[in-house]
């Protein structure tokens, strides 16, 4: 295998940290968060949760905000990262943001500061003049226990005003995927590597997988990094179908012009996945594997009758998610290449998300074609996502005065009843979401 220029043979390469090159160890199985203090001493990124819930460990990696507990350090040869410390030395165009966040009592104990700085930085790059709601939404996956957040939100509002007056750098450059020298660069190489290492996990964005592995009692599983495979990052319209590569981040899908014009609700739901950190790194393929039960993609892909393309086969989304439900405890052996979605639908996606940054409790997608045929898929209601059998009848029933028990009987799927919500509550929410679908009598 060809070693890259930054990676001398036998070593783990280098990572540029706050302007200084730091050597990586070969086969280092630590996360970036674990590695940082041991390699460079204490920095502003700090551990405060069990993985990806709080943001206190945030850094910026190749221009992208990341929670450093979700990044394996072995994948970072040749990358460049900064902690908050670097911006204190030289804030550049972000000086007004640094200044605003240094205001009196914006923070109290100071422990969570990185979370909010890097989320605000990413928000202001996307949305130079955010409203208060935008700022609160950008902080969805972050935790501060001292402040009640309002002072931080106000400080970012003030910074945005100051920065909007200064010139704004154009944004939208795709982050460069970083992979270690040993990561496959093509689908064929990835599949060959997987055959050689049965039981290995595919590692794309790592948003779900890395924190999970950190707390796994089992020995370190082997990982196959796929972030560097270019063909997984494609988005393109071919005829009346839209291909979205499994390696596309939620942020890329949300911002993609082809997606926004062909299937605007797909861009919309991608823009609401997780939080600003998850959207910067988390991928479509990763979400299909980890959030297969109640994430937003399953209902969307099932209602639109998408195909899931894997190396060597093509499956209806419906069947693919059914298989996923059967094999929930095992990592997928096959490499997902992407999804191919027919674009002739009028689509509406409705989700109920009572907890910020978490998958929807229940989500519903309706898709209607020119002939008036309607498909509705539901996720989060039952033990697995499903396609409604007679969508028009169900929609009419949900809007009518049919009692809940009879509506439930029509669905012929038992609602989940767990610590998060009762079955009756899930049914009531599903009814609400069905009522919100903008389709009228067949």
């Amino acid at each position: 295998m060809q070693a890259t220029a930054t990676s001398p043979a036998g070593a783990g390469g280098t990572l540029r940290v706050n302007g200084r090159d730091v050597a990586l160890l070969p086969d280092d199985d630590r996360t970036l968060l674990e590695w940082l203090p041991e390699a460079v001493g204490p920095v502003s990124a700090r551990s405060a949760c069990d993985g990806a819930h709080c943001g206190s460990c945030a850094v910026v990696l190749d221009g992208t905000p990341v929670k450093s507990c979700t990044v394996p350090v072995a994948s970072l040869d040749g990358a460049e990262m900064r902690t908050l410390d670097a911006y204190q030395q030289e804030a550049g165009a972000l000086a007004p943001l640094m200044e605003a966040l240094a205001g009196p009592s914006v923070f109290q104990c100071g422990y969570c500061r990185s979370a909010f700085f890097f989320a605000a930085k990413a928000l202001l790059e996307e949305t130079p003049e955010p409203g208060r709601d935008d700022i609160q939404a950008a902080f969805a996956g972050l935790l501060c226990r001292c402040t009640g957040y309002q002072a931080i939100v106000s400080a970012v509002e003030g910074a945005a005003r100051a920065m909007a007056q200064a010139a704004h750098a154009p944004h939208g450059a795709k982050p460069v995927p970083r992979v270690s020298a040993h990561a496959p660069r093509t689908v064929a190489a990835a599949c060959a590597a997987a055959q050689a290492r049965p039981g290995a996990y595919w590692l794309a964005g790592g948003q779900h997988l890395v924190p999970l592995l950190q707390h796994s009692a089992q020995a370190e599983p082997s990982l196959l990094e796929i972030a560097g495979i270019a063909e997984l990052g494609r988005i393109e319209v071919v005829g009346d179908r839209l291909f979205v590569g499994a390696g596309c981040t939620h942020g890329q899908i949300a911002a993609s012009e082809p997606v926004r014009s062909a299937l605007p609700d797909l861009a919309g739901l991608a823009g609401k996945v997780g939080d600003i950190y998850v959207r910067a790194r988390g991928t479509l393929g990763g979400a299909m594997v980890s959030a297969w039960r109640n994430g937003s993609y399953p209902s969307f892909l099932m209602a639109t009758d998408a195909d899931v393309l894997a190396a060597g086969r093509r499956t209806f989304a419906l069947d693919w998610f059914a298989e996923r439900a059967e094999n929930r405890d095992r990592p997928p052996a096959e490499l997902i290449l992407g999804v191919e979605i027919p674009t002739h639908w009028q689509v509406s996606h409705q989700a109920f998300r009572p907890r910020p940054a978490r998958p929807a409790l229940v989500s519903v997608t309706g898709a209607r074609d020119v002939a008036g045929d309607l498909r509705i898929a539901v996720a989060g209601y039952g033990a697995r996502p499903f396609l409604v059998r007679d969508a028009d009848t169900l929609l009419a029933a949900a809007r009518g005065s049919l009692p809940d028990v009879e509506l439930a009987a029509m669905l012929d799927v038992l609602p989940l009843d767990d610590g998060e919500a009762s079955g009756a509550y899930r049914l009531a929410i599903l009814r609400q979401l069905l009522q919100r679908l903008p389709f009228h009598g067949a």
Partner: protein
Amino acid sequence: MNASVVTPIGAPVRRKEDHRFITGKGRYTDDLSRPGQAHAYFLRSPYAHARIRAIDTSAAIDMPGVVAVLTGKDLAQDGLGGLICGWMIHSKDGSPMNAGAHPALALDTVRYVGDHVAVIIAETLNAAKDAAAAVVVDYEILPAVADLAQAQAEGGPVIHDVAPRNTVFEWELGDKAGTEAAFARAAHVTAIDIVNNRLAPNPMEPRAAIGDYDAGDDAFTLWTTSQNPHVARLVLSAFVGLAPENKLRVIAPDVGGGFGSKIFIYAEETVCAWASKRVGRPVKWTCERGEAFLCDAHGRDHITRGELALDGEGRILGFRVKTTANMGAYLSTFSSCVPTYLYATLLSGQYAIPAIYCEVDAVYTNTAPVDAYRGAGRPEATFLVERIIDKAARELGMDPAEMRRRNFVTAFPHQTPVIMCYDAGDYGASLDKALALADYTGFPARKAEAERRGRLRGIGLSAYIEACGIAPSAAVGSLGAGVGLWESAEVRVNPTGNVEVLTGSHSHGQGHETTFAQLVSARLGIPIDQVSVVHGDTDKVQFGMGTYGSRSGAVGMSAIVKALDKVEAKAKKIAAHVLEASEGDIEFKDGRFTVAGTDRGLAFAEVALNAYVAHKFPTSEIEPGLKEGAFYDPSNFTFPAGCHVCELEVDPETGVTQIVNWVAVDDFGTVINPMIVEGQVHGGIAQGVGQALMERVAYDNDGQLVTGSYMDYQMPRAEDLPSFTLGLTETRCPSNPLGMKGCGEAGAIAAPPAVINALTDALGTQDISMPATPAKLWAVAQARVTRRAAE
């Protein structure tokens, strides 16, 4: 504001500590490393209740990188005592509380999931974790009880042999006969049943410790995430028996939030210090969030029945309360005072109540220990008082604001029937201001408008009071406290006129480095950047009681004032000699000592230099130098009070609550830095809203923790909270020199009843418990529809 100018009290000064925090240069305990340190990992009980038949550590010791595997037997062998509860409570019958032993590592029994079984010390944390899996523990699983309501059942599991029916104490306060008499003549009685939900404090910085034994000096240093390092040293010396105080240094560097949970002396910190001598190397431990959910002391967890006796005009005649309080599996450091003297003493609220009687049963369960969490007893009291008065108003058809006004204490001092003597306040003023800011009179129109949109809108009041500035030493001593609750300060003036202030208070987000410096800057007339505040190190600071109970302003700063008085008095003597004037003619103003009626004078720095040079005054009469210390013991508690108004809307179809307006009008007495006070209020409200709408610690019937991560334990995020409208009213606190009352806990105390009162208003039923989650409110809203249909 510029740091190089004198900063008066009340100025919104930027925080001095922020420069350190914003650079990521904050020095939290986990940022520190000691040369040669090893890492500790604790093997914890997977069972809520079990007897340990045997522990086999032999395989673990042989694992790569393992330095030592230690158990409770090793601790006992070294003669170390158990952890203590520092407040003795006596039952009604005069008997002392039934406190079970609390070893730092379990000896023969584990009593909750997460209880400490062994510590594994290794070269790396991962090596320690791997070895923990190789420790073989032979458990005999015992029946467990996690549910507070079942804990006192006859024939149930007994958690400590010393506590039959798991009852720690059966305590009472107040006048039983007088209260019975009040109920006998009542025109109306309102009763309420309340569960005050168990909470996890969750400061963002997890606990951490490094123990370091120096064989050369035979002395220990313990770096730890503590709100009161001096008390930690005292307990570890006097009770645990680790080392005498002169051989034990405790340092609490930057601490990332505490909210009470870092007051206590825990097993892990104790073990790290002890083990560092045992293994001859520094031992470091950092808590993982999952461990914090298991083992950081939880808060609240009460079941209460309250009854209010009223006359025909809505005046309160008497109040009767029966509370069962969950203490968890062991009595944590201050746990026993929380449901007693920090709770029942506040049951009079802001109201003139002639007779109060309260009984509290404290019980053990197979759950994590419960101790002080932001507010500690006062939120539980306020929730009860503010819920029952609201319910009474609804039952009597009175406006809740009018009901409160009719019963307010209006003359001060006011002696309540439950120990406290309120010294100053104007409850009508804070109510009026809050109602005006909330546009209370415009509410019916807003409610009607919301109803047209299909939303149920409600408004809720909370007129809270708390007892802070904890506390007069003799008074708390008479109630069972094992320590005095004064505070100390030392003001060191250096020869060039800059100042170091050493305080026994501790800052973990409150901004003491700024407010304390602001006080000194204003008093001595020197720029704020010439004042440094030193805290959190027992080798530097004389002694102190730490930061909790909103005491650092009222008590900690009062000690600084007392030391400043001494500095000024001595400096005046020196100035008189240098200026060749009589001491009585020396005036000190704006940083200058002047001879009255002349233009002759000296800057503060010149007097400081003269004090150290000592050429111009008789050292037989005046000692050289300018450094003064003071210990300040408060003469009373302080009584912050105020009124919060919550306005919210519930979507009956989803049960989702949106808080649309929040008004907080607080009387904290003198305010030193309004920005810091606002931050404290915001943060307190956020935690109170969390308790009301989403937070709860839950155990299943086997005592397994159900809410052990942020997946299951929901804390407020930015989108969950509204903007807050804050207002202040001010009555000076007469008992301390600055007139301060304290602000750190007010929001957490005031908020929960404001939210629930608003929800009961919106949904038209009193039957709403905390946390009022969407699923729960949806069910209430559905029942409301059904009820209306039936009517």
